[in-house]
Protein backbone atom coordinates (compact mmCIF):
# COMPACT_ATOMS: atom_id res chain seq x y z
CA UNK A 1 0.00 0.00 0.00
CA UNK A 2 1.28 3.44 -0.88
CA UNK A 3 1.39 5.65 2.23
CA UNK A 4 2.83 8.84 0.74
CA UNK A 5 2.63 9.81 -2.90
CA UNK A 6 3.65 13.20 -4.21
CA UNK A 7 3.24 14.39 -7.77
CA UNK A 8 5.03 17.48 -9.05
CA UNK A 9 4.84 19.01 -5.60
CA UNK A 10 6.16 22.55 -5.72
CA UNK A 11 6.70 25.35 -3.23
CA UNK A 12 7.86 28.81 -4.19
CA UNK A 13 8.64 31.59 -1.72
CA UNK A 14 8.50 34.73 -3.83
CA UNK A 15 11.58 34.40 -6.05
CA UNK A 16 12.99 31.32 -4.36
CA UNK A 17 11.92 27.91 -5.62
CA UNK A 18 12.23 25.80 -2.45
CA UNK A 19 10.71 22.58 -3.83
CA UNK A 20 10.65 21.96 -7.54
CA UNK A 21 8.10 19.48 -8.92
CA UNK A 22 9.10 16.56 -6.73
CA UNK A 23 7.48 13.17 -7.10
CA UNK A 24 8.14 10.19 -4.88
CA UNK A 25 6.34 7.37 -3.14
CA UNK A 26 6.69 5.72 0.24
CA UNK A 27 5.23 2.26 0.68
CA UNK A 28 3.85 0.73 3.87
CA UNK A 29 6.50 -0.64 6.22
CA UNK A 30 9.39 1.26 4.70
CA UNK A 31 11.82 3.24 6.82
CA UNK A 32 12.32 5.97 4.28
CA UNK A 33 15.23 8.40 4.49
CA UNK A 34 14.83 11.79 2.87
CA UNK A 35 18.37 12.97 2.31
CA UNK A 36 19.73 16.27 1.28
CA UNK A 37 22.06 19.05 2.30
CA UNK A 38 20.78 21.88 4.51
CA UNK A 39 18.43 24.12 2.56
CA UNK A 40 17.67 21.50 -0.06
CA UNK A 41 13.91 21.52 0.58
CA UNK A 42 13.45 18.62 3.00
CA UNK A 43 11.63 20.54 5.73
CA UNK A 44 9.47 22.43 3.24
CA UNK A 45 8.40 19.13 1.68
CA UNK A 46 7.51 17.66 5.07
CA UNK A 47 5.70 20.90 5.98
CA UNK A 48 3.48 20.46 2.93
CA UNK A 49 2.75 16.83 3.82
CA UNK A 50 1.76 17.92 7.33
CA UNK A 51 -0.50 20.74 6.19
CA UNK A 52 1.43 23.61 7.74
CA UNK A 53 2.91 24.83 4.45
CA UNK A 54 0.65 25.40 1.47
CA UNK A 55 1.99 23.96 -1.81
CA UNK A 56 2.30 26.35 -4.73
CA UNK A 57 1.55 23.58 -7.24
CA UNK A 58 1.31 19.81 -7.54
CA UNK A 59 -0.46 17.40 -5.25
CA UNK A 60 0.12 14.67 -2.74
CA UNK A 61 -1.79 11.83 -1.17
CA UNK A 62 -1.52 10.36 2.30
CA UNK A 63 -2.94 6.84 2.64
CA UNK A 64 -4.44 7.37 -0.82
CA UNK A 65 -6.40 10.46 0.28
CA UNK A 66 -6.09 13.98 -1.03
CA UNK A 67 -8.01 17.19 -0.50
CA UNK A 68 -8.15 19.40 2.60
CA UNK A 69 -10.89 17.56 4.50
CA UNK A 70 -9.69 14.04 3.74
CA UNK A 71 -6.09 14.92 4.51
CA UNK A 72 -7.06 16.42 7.85
CA UNK A 73 -8.87 13.17 8.66
CA UNK A 74 -6.00 10.84 7.68
CA UNK A 75 -3.45 13.00 9.46
CA UNK A 76 -4.82 11.42 12.64
CA UNK A 77 -2.87 8.35 11.47
CA UNK A 78 0.31 10.38 11.29
CA UNK A 79 2.70 11.29 14.11
CA UNK A 80 5.29 13.92 13.29
CA UNK A 81 7.73 16.55 14.42
CA UNK A 82 9.15 19.24 12.22
CA UNK A 83 12.61 20.74 12.73
CA UNK A 84 13.40 21.06 16.44
CA UNK A 85 11.00 19.72 19.09
CA UNK A 86 8.18 22.23 19.58
CA UNK A 87 6.83 22.24 23.13
CA UNK A 88 5.67 24.65 25.82
CA UNK A 89 8.84 25.36 27.83
CA UNK A 90 7.02 26.15 31.08
CA UNK A 91 5.05 22.89 31.09
CA UNK A 92 6.36 19.53 32.20
CA UNK A 93 7.06 16.86 29.64
CA UNK A 94 3.96 15.06 30.88
CA UNK A 95 1.69 18.10 30.51
CA UNK A 96 3.05 18.72 27.02
CA UNK A 97 2.10 15.16 26.14
CA UNK A 98 -1.32 15.66 27.77
CA UNK A 99 -2.02 18.48 25.33
CA UNK A 100 -1.02 16.31 22.38
CA UNK A 101 -2.99 13.36 23.82
CA UNK A 102 -6.15 15.48 24.11
CA UNK A 103 -5.81 16.48 20.46
CA UNK A 104 -5.24 12.89 19.38
CA UNK A 105 -8.00 11.59 21.62
CA UNK A 106 -5.86 9.15 23.61
CA UNK A 107 -5.79 8.58 27.34
CA UNK A 108 -3.25 8.86 30.13
CA UNK A 109 -2.21 5.22 29.82
CA UNK A 110 -0.91 5.88 26.33
CA UNK A 111 1.14 8.84 27.63
CA UNK A 112 2.82 6.55 30.13
CA UNK A 113 3.49 3.93 27.45
CA UNK A 114 5.06 6.51 25.11
CA UNK A 115 7.25 7.88 27.90
CA UNK A 116 8.32 4.33 28.63
CA UNK A 117 9.28 3.71 24.98
CA UNK A 118 11.50 6.81 24.88
CA UNK A 119 12.86 6.11 28.40
CA UNK A 120 11.73 9.43 29.84
CA UNK A 121 9.39 8.28 32.60
CA UNK A 122 11.69 9.44 35.38
CA UNK A 123 11.83 13.04 34.16
CA UNK A 124 8.25 13.33 32.90
CA UNK A 125 7.17 15.74 35.65
CA UNK A 126 10.10 18.13 35.14
CA UNK A 127 9.67 21.27 33.11
CA UNK A 128 10.51 20.92 29.45
CA UNK A 129 12.92 23.86 29.60
CA UNK A 130 15.15 21.88 31.98
CA UNK A 131 15.59 19.02 29.51
CA UNK A 132 18.81 18.32 27.60
CA UNK A 133 18.61 18.35 23.82
CA UNK A 134 18.57 14.56 23.76
CA UNK A 135 15.64 14.48 26.18
CA UNK A 136 13.79 17.07 24.11
CA UNK A 137 14.25 14.92 21.02
CA UNK A 138 13.02 11.87 22.90
CA UNK A 139 9.98 13.76 24.18
CA UNK A 140 9.27 14.76 20.57
CA UNK A 141 9.42 11.08 19.64
CA UNK A 142 7.06 10.26 22.50
CA UNK A 143 4.58 12.84 21.22
CA UNK A 144 4.97 11.42 17.74
CA UNK A 145 4.08 7.87 18.73
CA UNK A 146 1.38 8.92 21.22
CA UNK A 147 -1.54 8.20 18.91
CA UNK A 148 -0.02 4.86 17.76
CA UNK A 149 0.29 6.29 14.23
CA UNK A 150 0.68 4.21 11.08
CA UNK A 151 3.04 6.79 9.60
CA UNK A 152 5.79 8.52 11.59
CA UNK A 153 7.44 11.59 10.08
CA UNK A 154 10.60 12.86 11.72
CA UNK A 155 12.61 15.85 10.60
CA UNK A 156 16.29 15.60 11.53
CA UNK A 157 15.58 13.53 14.65
CA UNK A 158 19.26 13.20 15.59
CA UNK A 159 20.15 16.83 14.97
CA UNK A 160 22.57 18.24 17.52
CA UNK A 161 22.76 15.06 19.58
CA UNK A 162 25.92 13.55 21.00
CA UNK A 163 26.82 9.98 19.94
CA UNK A 164 24.99 8.51 22.92
CA UNK A 165 21.85 10.51 22.13
CA UNK A 166 22.05 9.51 18.47
CA UNK A 167 22.33 5.87 19.43
CA UNK A 168 19.26 6.11 21.66
CA UNK A 169 17.18 7.78 18.96
CA UNK A 170 18.40 5.28 16.37
CA UNK A 171 17.46 2.33 18.57
CA UNK A 172 13.97 3.72 19.11
CA UNK A 173 13.44 4.36 15.39
CA UNK A 174 14.71 0.91 14.43
CA UNK A 175 12.39 -0.62 17.05
CA UNK A 176 9.43 1.30 15.65
CA UNK A 177 10.34 0.15 12.14
CA UNK A 178 10.47 -3.44 13.35
CA UNK A 179 6.95 -2.99 14.74
CA UNK A 180 5.79 -2.39 11.18
CA UNK A 181 5.40 1.38 11.32
CA UNK A 182 6.08 3.32 8.16
CA UNK A 183 8.75 5.89 8.97
CA UNK A 184 9.70 8.89 6.88
CA UNK A 185 12.70 10.73 8.21
CA UNK A 186 14.77 13.52 6.85
CA UNK A 187 18.40 13.83 7.70
CA UNK A 188 21.78 14.92 6.49
CA UNK A 189 23.50 12.45 8.82
CA UNK A 190 24.13 9.79 6.20
CA UNK A 191 25.74 7.16 8.39
CA UNK A 192 22.67 7.32 10.66
CA UNK A 193 20.29 6.97 7.72
CA UNK A 194 22.30 4.03 6.37
CA UNK A 195 21.87 2.24 9.69
CA UNK A 196 18.15 2.93 10.03
CA UNK A 197 16.53 3.17 6.59
CA UNK A 198 15.36 0.66 4.03
CA UNK A 199 14.77 3.23 1.27
CA UNK A 200 16.04 6.70 0.49
CA UNK A 201 15.36 9.64 -1.77
CA UNK A 202 18.01 12.27 -2.36
CA UNK A 203 16.91 15.87 -2.76
CA UNK A 204 19.14 18.71 -3.90
CA UNK A 205 18.14 22.28 -4.65
CA UNK A 206 14.50 21.32 -4.34
CA UNK A 207 14.65 18.42 -6.81
CA UNK A 208 14.61 14.68 -6.18
CA UNK A 209 17.70 13.38 -7.90
CA UNK A 210 17.55 9.74 -6.85
CA UNK A 211 15.12 7.38 -5.14
CA UNK A 212 16.05 3.77 -4.41
CA UNK A 213 16.35 1.16 -1.70
CA UNK A 214 19.43 1.54 0.44
CA UNK A 215 20.57 -1.87 -0.84
CA UNK A 216 20.32 -0.77 -4.46
CA UNK A 217 21.95 2.54 -3.70
CA UNK A 218 24.95 0.83 -2.13
CA UNK A 219 25.14 -1.95 -4.69
CA UNK A 220 24.94 0.31 -7.72
CA UNK A 221 28.65 -0.08 -8.40
CA UNK A 222 31.40 -2.23 -6.95
CA UNK A 223 34.30 -0.16 -5.76
CA UNK A 224 37.74 -1.80 -5.99
CA UNK A 225 40.80 -0.63 -4.12
CA UNK A 226 44.17 -1.28 -5.80
CA UNK A 227 47.75 -0.73 -4.72
CA UNK A 228 50.93 -1.21 -6.69
CA UNK A 229 54.51 -0.02 -7.01
CA UNK A 230 53.62 2.74 -9.50
CA UNK A 231 50.32 4.38 -8.47
CA UNK A 232 50.36 6.80 -11.41
CA UNK A 233 50.61 4.07 -14.05
CA UNK A 234 48.16 1.93 -12.06
CA UNK A 235 45.64 4.76 -11.91
CA UNK A 236 45.93 5.49 -15.63
CA UNK A 237 45.55 1.82 -16.62
CA UNK A 238 42.64 1.29 -14.21
CA UNK A 239 40.86 4.31 -15.63
CA UNK A 240 41.19 2.84 -19.13
CA UNK A 241 39.73 -0.52 -18.10
CA UNK A 242 36.53 -0.99 -20.18
CA UNK A 243 34.50 -2.02 -17.13
CA UNK A 244 35.50 1.04 -15.11
CA UNK A 245 32.84 3.65 -14.47
CA UNK A 246 35.39 5.94 -12.84
CA UNK A 247 38.76 5.86 -11.14
CA UNK A 248 40.74 8.12 -8.87
CA UNK A 249 44.01 8.11 -7.01
CA UNK A 250 43.96 8.85 -3.31
CA UNK A 251 46.60 10.65 -1.26
CA UNK A 252 47.93 7.47 0.33
CA UNK A 253 48.66 5.97 -3.11
CA UNK A 254 45.57 3.75 -3.30
CA UNK A 255 43.71 3.70 -6.59
CA UNK A 256 39.93 3.42 -6.29
CA UNK A 257 37.97 2.13 -9.28
CA UNK A 258 34.19 2.03 -9.63
CA UNK A 259 33.24 -1.00 -11.70
CA UNK A 260 30.05 -1.77 -13.56
CA UNK A 261 30.29 -5.41 -12.45
CA UNK A 262 31.91 -7.32 -9.61
CA UNK A 263 34.47 -9.25 -11.70
CA UNK A 264 37.72 -8.29 -9.98
CA UNK A 265 39.55 -11.15 -11.76
CA UNK A 266 38.87 -9.58 -15.13
CA UNK A 267 40.29 -6.28 -13.89
CA UNK A 268 43.37 -8.04 -12.57
CA UNK A 269 43.89 -9.88 -15.88
CA UNK A 270 43.47 -6.63 -17.80
CA UNK A 271 46.11 -4.88 -15.68
CA UNK A 272 48.49 -7.85 -15.90
CA UNK A 273 48.01 -7.82 -19.66
CA UNK A 274 49.32 -4.26 -19.63
CA UNK A 275 52.32 -5.27 -17.52
CA UNK A 276 51.01 -3.84 -14.27
CA UNK A 277 51.02 -6.12 -11.26
CA UNK A 278 49.13 -5.10 -8.17
CA UNK A 279 50.22 -5.71 -4.58
CA UNK A 280 46.68 -5.31 -3.25
CA UNK A 281 43.29 -5.81 -4.87
CA UNK A 282 40.12 -5.74 -2.79
CA UNK A 283 36.54 -4.56 -2.64
CA UNK A 284 36.01 -1.39 -0.70
CA UNK A 285 32.70 -1.24 1.09
CA UNK A 286 30.68 1.62 -0.30
CA UNK A 287 28.89 3.78 2.18
CA UNK A 288 25.71 5.74 1.66
CA UNK A 289 27.86 8.83 2.05
CA UNK A 290 29.92 7.75 -0.99
CA UNK A 291 26.75 7.18 -2.99
CA UNK A 292 25.28 10.47 -1.81
CA UNK A 293 28.39 12.42 -2.73
CA UNK A 294 28.52 10.84 -6.16
CA UNK A 295 24.87 11.63 -6.80
CA UNK A 296 24.89 15.17 -5.47
CA UNK A 297 28.20 16.18 -7.02
CA UNK A 298 27.37 14.63 -10.39
CA UNK A 299 24.10 16.56 -10.36
CA UNK A 300 22.49 13.85 -12.43
CA UNK A 301 18.75 13.60 -12.56
CA UNK A 302 17.61 10.02 -12.37
CA UNK A 303 14.05 8.90 -12.70
CA UNK A 304 12.89 6.99 -9.65
Amino acid at each position, binding site marked *: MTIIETRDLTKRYRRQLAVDRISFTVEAGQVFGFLGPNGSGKTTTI*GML*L*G*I*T*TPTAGEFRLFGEKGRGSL*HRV*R*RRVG*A*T*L*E*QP*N*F*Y*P*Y*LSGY*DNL*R*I*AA*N*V*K*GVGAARIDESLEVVRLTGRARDRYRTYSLGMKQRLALA*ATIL*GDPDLIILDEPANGLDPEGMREIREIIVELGQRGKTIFLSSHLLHEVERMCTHVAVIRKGKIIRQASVHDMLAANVVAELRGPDPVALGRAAGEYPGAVGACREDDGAVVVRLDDSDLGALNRYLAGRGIYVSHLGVRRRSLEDAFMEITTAGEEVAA
Partner: protein
Amino acid sequence: MTALTLARNEWIKTTRRPALWVTLLCLLAIVGIVFFQRYSSGLSNDDVTPLRLPDGWAFILGEPGPMPAIFGAIVVILLVASEFSWRTARQNVIDGLSREQFYAGKVLLVPGMSLALLGLVVALGVAFALPGTGLSDLTGPLVGLDDLAFAGAVLLSMVGMGAMALFIASVVRSSGPAMALFFFYIAFGEQLLAALAARFIPAVAAVAHYAPGQVFMNMAEARIYYPSLQEAAVARALERGAAAPVFPSATVLVGVALGWTAFFLLAGFLAFRRRDL
Protein backbone atom coordinates in the same frame (compact mmCIF):
# COMPACT_ATOMS: atom_id res chain seq x y z
CA MET B 1 -12.71 17.52 18.38
CA THR B 2 -15.06 19.13 20.83
CA ALA B 3 -15.02 22.64 22.26
CA LEU B 4 -14.47 20.96 25.63
CA THR B 5 -11.21 19.42 24.42
CA LEU B 6 -10.05 22.77 23.08
CA ALA B 7 -11.01 24.46 26.34
CA ARG B 8 -9.23 21.76 28.35
CA ASN B 9 -6.00 22.31 26.44
CA GLU B 10 -6.25 26.09 26.73
CA TRP B 11 -6.82 25.63 30.46
CA ILE B 12 -3.57 23.62 30.81
CA LYS B 13 -1.61 26.13 28.73
CA THR B 14 -3.04 29.15 30.54
CA THR B 15 -3.13 28.17 34.18
CA ARG B 16 0.42 26.80 34.19
CA ARG B 17 1.85 29.95 32.63
CA PRO B 18 3.72 32.00 35.27
CA ALA B 19 3.28 35.19 33.17
CA LEU B 20 -0.50 34.89 33.66
CA TRP B 21 -0.24 34.92 37.44
CA VAL B 22 2.22 37.80 37.45
CA THR B 23 -0.15 39.81 35.24
CA LEU B 24 -3.12 38.95 37.45
CA LEU B 25 -1.23 39.97 40.58
CA CYS B 26 -0.33 43.32 38.98
CA LEU B 27 -3.99 43.92 38.05
CA LEU B 28 -5.20 42.96 41.52
CA ALA B 29 -2.62 45.24 43.12
CA ILE B 30 -3.67 48.25 41.01
CA VAL B 31 -7.41 47.65 41.41
CA GLY B 32 -6.90 46.80 45.08
CA ILE B 33 -5.27 50.21 45.66
CA VAL B 34 -8.25 51.95 43.97
CA PHE B 35 -10.76 50.05 46.11
CA PHE B 36 -8.75 50.45 49.29
CA GLN B 37 -8.49 54.23 48.83
CA ARG B 38 -12.26 54.50 48.48
CA TYR B 39 -12.81 52.14 51.39
CA SER B 40 -10.49 54.08 53.71
CA SER B 41 -11.92 57.44 52.55
CA GLY B 42 -15.38 56.15 53.39
CA LEU B 43 -14.21 55.34 56.89
CA SER B 44 -12.29 58.53 57.57
CA ASN B 45 -14.10 61.18 55.53
CA ASP B 46 -17.71 62.04 56.34
CA ASP B 47 -18.23 63.64 52.90
CA VAL B 48 -17.46 60.36 51.14
CA THR B 49 -20.17 57.71 51.07
CA PRO B 50 -18.74 54.42 52.33
CA LEU B 51 -18.34 51.73 49.67
CA ARG B 52 -21.38 49.50 50.01
CA LEU B 53 -23.80 47.49 47.91
CA PRO B 54 -25.92 47.93 45.89
CA ASP B 55 -24.89 51.61 45.44
CA GLY B 56 -21.24 50.65 45.01
CA TRP B 57 -21.60 48.60 41.81
CA ALA B 58 -20.99 51.58 39.56
CA PHE B 59 -17.77 52.26 41.45
CA ILE B 60 -16.63 48.61 41.55
CA LEU B 61 -17.30 48.05 37.85
CA GLY B 62 -16.39 51.50 36.53
CA GLU B 63 -13.60 52.89 38.68
CA PRO B 64 -10.89 50.44 37.51
CA GLY B 65 -11.56 51.97 34.07
CA PRO B 66 -9.93 50.16 31.13
CA MET B 67 -7.39 48.39 33.40
CA PRO B 68 -9.05 44.92 33.38
CA ALA B 69 -9.53 45.12 29.60
CA ILE B 70 -5.91 46.13 29.02
CA PHE B 71 -4.56 43.44 31.34
CA GLY B 72 -6.81 40.89 29.63
CA ALA B 73 -5.39 41.97 26.28
CA ILE B 74 -1.84 41.60 27.62
CA VAL B 75 -2.59 38.04 28.71
CA VAL B 76 -4.15 37.21 25.33
CA ILE B 77 -1.11 38.55 23.48
CA LEU B 78 1.26 36.61 25.74
CA LEU B 79 -0.68 33.39 25.31
CA VAL B 80 -1.28 33.64 21.58
CA ALA B 81 1.94 35.17 20.21
CA SER B 82 4.14 32.72 22.09
CA GLU B 83 2.40 29.84 20.27
CA PHE B 84 4.14 31.11 17.15
CA SER B 85 7.56 31.87 18.63
CA TRP B 86 7.67 28.47 20.32
CA ARG B 87 6.19 26.91 17.18
CA THR B 88 3.62 25.11 19.28
CA ALA B 89 0.86 26.37 16.98
CA ARG B 90 2.58 24.40 14.25
CA GLN B 91 2.91 21.34 16.49
CA ASN B 92 -0.76 21.54 17.54
CA VAL B 93 -1.73 21.43 13.86
CA ILE B 94 0.71 18.58 13.20
CA ASP B 95 -0.78 16.71 16.17
CA GLY B 96 -4.20 16.83 14.55
CA LEU B 97 -5.93 20.17 15.12
CA SER B 98 -7.16 21.92 12.02
CA ARG B 99 -6.21 25.56 11.74
CA GLU B 100 -9.84 26.44 12.44
CA GLN B 101 -9.80 24.38 15.62
CA PHE B 102 -6.55 25.91 16.81
CA TYR B 103 -7.92 29.42 16.27
CA ALA B 104 -11.22 28.47 17.90
CA GLY B 105 -9.23 27.50 21.01
CA LYS B 106 -7.72 30.97 21.06
CA VAL B 107 -11.13 32.57 20.54
CA LEU B 108 -12.38 30.67 23.60
CA LEU B 109 -9.56 32.25 25.53
CA VAL B 110 -10.90 35.78 24.95
CA PRO B 111 -14.27 35.53 26.75
CA GLY B 112 -12.77 33.07 29.24
CA MET B 113 -10.02 35.47 30.26
CA SER B 114 -12.44 38.42 30.29
CA LEU B 115 -14.86 36.59 32.57
CA ALA B 116 -12.06 35.50 34.88
CA LEU B 117 -10.57 38.99 35.20
CA LEU B 118 -13.93 40.66 35.64
CA GLY B 119 -14.83 38.04 38.25
CA LEU B 120 -11.64 38.79 40.17
CA VAL B 121 -12.22 42.55 40.06
CA VAL B 122 -15.82 42.10 41.22
CA ALA B 123 -14.77 39.70 43.98
CA LEU B 124 -12.17 42.16 45.21
CA GLY B 125 -14.63 45.05 45.05
CA VAL B 126 -17.27 43.06 46.92
CA ALA B 127 -14.70 42.18 49.58
CA PHE B 128 -14.16 45.91 50.20
CA ALA B 129 -17.89 46.74 49.96
CA LEU B 130 -19.31 44.00 52.17
CA PRO B 131 -18.20 45.45 55.51
CA GLY B 132 -20.21 48.61 54.75
CA THR B 133 -23.22 46.74 53.40
CA GLY B 134 -26.01 46.08 55.83
CA LEU B 135 -27.45 42.94 54.23
CA SER B 136 -30.33 42.89 56.71
CA ASP B 137 -31.24 46.52 55.85
CA LEU B 138 -31.54 45.87 52.10
CA THR B 139 -34.90 46.92 50.71
CA GLY B 140 -34.30 46.05 47.05
CA PRO B 141 -32.21 43.53 45.15
CA LEU B 142 -28.45 43.39 45.78
CA VAL B 143 -27.82 43.68 42.03
CA GLY B 144 -30.08 45.93 39.93
CA LEU B 145 -30.81 45.85 36.21
CA ASP B 146 -28.59 48.88 35.62
CA ASP B 147 -25.76 47.08 37.41
CA LEU B 148 -26.21 44.01 35.23
CA ALA B 149 -26.30 46.14 32.08
CA PHE B 150 -23.10 47.90 33.14
CA ALA B 151 -21.39 44.61 34.04
CA GLY B 152 -22.36 43.23 30.61
CA ALA B 153 -20.96 46.32 28.91
CA VAL B 154 -17.70 46.10 30.84
CA LEU B 155 -17.44 42.42 29.91
CA LEU B 156 -18.09 43.26 26.25
CA SER B 157 -15.43 45.96 26.32
CA MET B 158 -12.97 43.42 27.72
CA VAL B 159 -13.93 40.85 25.08
CA GLY B 160 -13.54 43.50 22.38
CA MET B 161 -10.12 44.52 23.61
CA GLY B 162 -9.17 40.83 23.83
CA ALA B 163 -10.33 40.28 20.25
CA MET B 164 -8.18 43.21 19.14
CA ALA B 165 -5.22 41.67 21.02
CA LEU B 166 -5.90 38.29 19.39
CA PHE B 167 -5.90 39.93 15.97
CA ILE B 168 -2.60 41.74 16.61
CA ALA B 169 -0.96 38.61 18.07
CA SER B 170 -2.12 36.52 15.07
CA VAL B 171 -0.66 39.02 12.63
CA VAL B 172 2.57 39.96 14.44
CA ARG B 173 3.27 36.47 15.91
CA SER B 174 5.77 37.71 18.48
CA SER B 175 4.89 38.83 22.04
CA GLY B 176 7.15 41.89 22.33
CA PRO B 177 6.31 43.59 19.03
CA ALA B 178 2.62 42.65 19.39
CA MET B 179 2.49 44.23 22.84
CA ALA B 180 4.28 47.35 21.59
CA LEU B 181 1.87 47.69 18.67
CA PHE B 182 -1.15 47.18 20.92
CA PHE B 183 -0.08 49.88 23.41
CA PHE B 184 0.99 52.28 20.68
CA TYR B 185 -2.39 51.90 18.99
CA ILE B 186 -4.36 52.32 22.21
CA ALA B 187 -2.28 55.23 23.53
CA PHE B 188 -1.53 57.21 20.38
CA GLY B 189 -2.24 55.35 17.16
CA GLU B 190 -5.99 55.66 17.12
CA GLN B 191 -6.02 59.39 17.98
CA LEU B 192 -3.28 59.96 15.42
CA LEU B 193 -5.17 58.10 12.71
CA ALA B 194 -8.41 59.85 13.63
CA ALA B 195 -6.74 63.28 13.54
CA LEU B 196 -5.10 62.58 10.20
CA ALA B 197 -8.31 61.23 8.74
CA ALA B 198 -10.32 64.18 10.06
CA ARG B 199 -7.84 66.61 8.54
CA PHE B 200 -8.10 65.16 5.07
CA ILE B 201 -11.63 63.73 5.19
CA PRO B 202 -13.73 65.98 7.47
CA ALA B 203 -16.64 63.57 7.44
CA VAL B 204 -14.48 61.03 9.29
CA ALA B 205 -14.28 63.29 12.35
CA ALA B 206 -17.91 62.58 13.12
CA VAL B 207 -17.33 58.83 13.33
CA ALA B 208 -13.81 58.88 14.80
CA HIS B 209 -15.15 58.26 18.30
CA TYR B 210 -16.50 54.97 17.04
CA ALA B 211 -12.95 53.73 16.42
CA PRO B 212 -12.45 50.44 18.26
CA GLY B 213 -10.20 51.65 21.08
CA GLN B 214 -12.53 54.57 21.82
CA VAL B 215 -15.58 52.36 21.83
CA PHE B 216 -14.08 49.70 24.07
CA MET B 217 -12.80 52.31 26.55
CA ASN B 218 -16.03 54.36 26.54
CA MET B 219 -18.08 51.30 27.28
CA ALA B 220 -16.55 51.08 30.75
CA GLU B 221 -17.95 54.56 31.59
CA ALA B 222 -20.52 54.11 34.37
CA ARG B 223 -22.52 57.29 33.61
CA ILE B 224 -23.76 55.78 30.34
CA TYR B 225 -25.70 53.10 32.21
CA TYR B 226 -26.92 54.90 35.35
CA PRO B 227 -29.52 57.67 34.80
CA SER B 228 -28.87 58.96 38.34
CA LEU B 229 -25.18 59.50 37.54
CA GLN B 230 -26.11 61.20 34.27
CA GLU B 231 -28.49 63.58 36.08
CA ALA B 232 -25.81 64.38 38.67
CA ALA B 233 -23.27 65.09 35.93
CA VAL B 234 -25.69 67.39 34.11
CA ALA B 235 -26.53 69.23 37.34
CA ARG B 236 -22.85 69.74 38.16
CA ALA B 237 -22.15 71.07 34.66
CA LEU B 238 -25.09 73.50 34.86
CA GLU B 239 -23.92 74.68 38.29
CA ARG B 240 -20.57 75.54 36.74
CA GLY B 241 -22.33 77.26 33.85
CA ALA B 242 -20.98 74.70 31.39
CA ALA B 243 -22.92 72.95 28.67
CA ALA B 244 -24.69 69.79 29.78
CA PRO B 245 -22.68 66.71 28.82
CA VAL B 246 -24.11 64.42 26.15
CA PHE B 247 -23.70 60.71 26.74
CA PRO B 248 -23.47 58.22 23.89
CA SER B 249 -26.29 55.73 23.49
CA ALA B 250 -25.51 52.44 25.23
CA THR B 251 -27.34 50.54 22.49
CA VAL B 252 -25.24 52.12 19.76
CA LEU B 253 -22.01 51.50 21.69
CA VAL B 254 -22.91 47.86 22.25
CA GLY B 255 -23.78 47.43 18.56
CA VAL B 256 -20.53 49.02 17.40
CA ALA B 257 -18.49 47.06 19.97
CA LEU B 258 -20.04 43.80 18.78
CA GLY B 259 -19.23 44.77 15.19
CA TRP B 260 -15.59 45.57 15.98
CA THR B 261 -15.26 42.37 18.02
CA ALA B 262 -16.57 40.27 15.14
CA PHE B 263 -14.29 42.14 12.72
CA PHE B 264 -11.15 41.49 14.81
CA LEU B 265 -11.96 37.83 15.33
CA LEU B 266 -12.58 37.29 11.62
CA ALA B 267 -9.59 39.33 10.46
CA GLY B 268 -7.38 37.50 12.95
CA PHE B 269 -8.58 34.17 11.62
CA LEU B 270 -8.00 35.14 8.00
CA ALA B 271 -4.49 36.38 8.82
CA PHE B 272 -3.79 33.17 10.74
CA ARG B 273 -5.12 30.85 8.04
CA ARG B 274 -3.43 32.61 5.15
CA ARG B 275 0.13 32.21 6.34
CA ASP B 276 2.27 29.11 6.73
CA LEU B 277 2.92 28.04 10.31
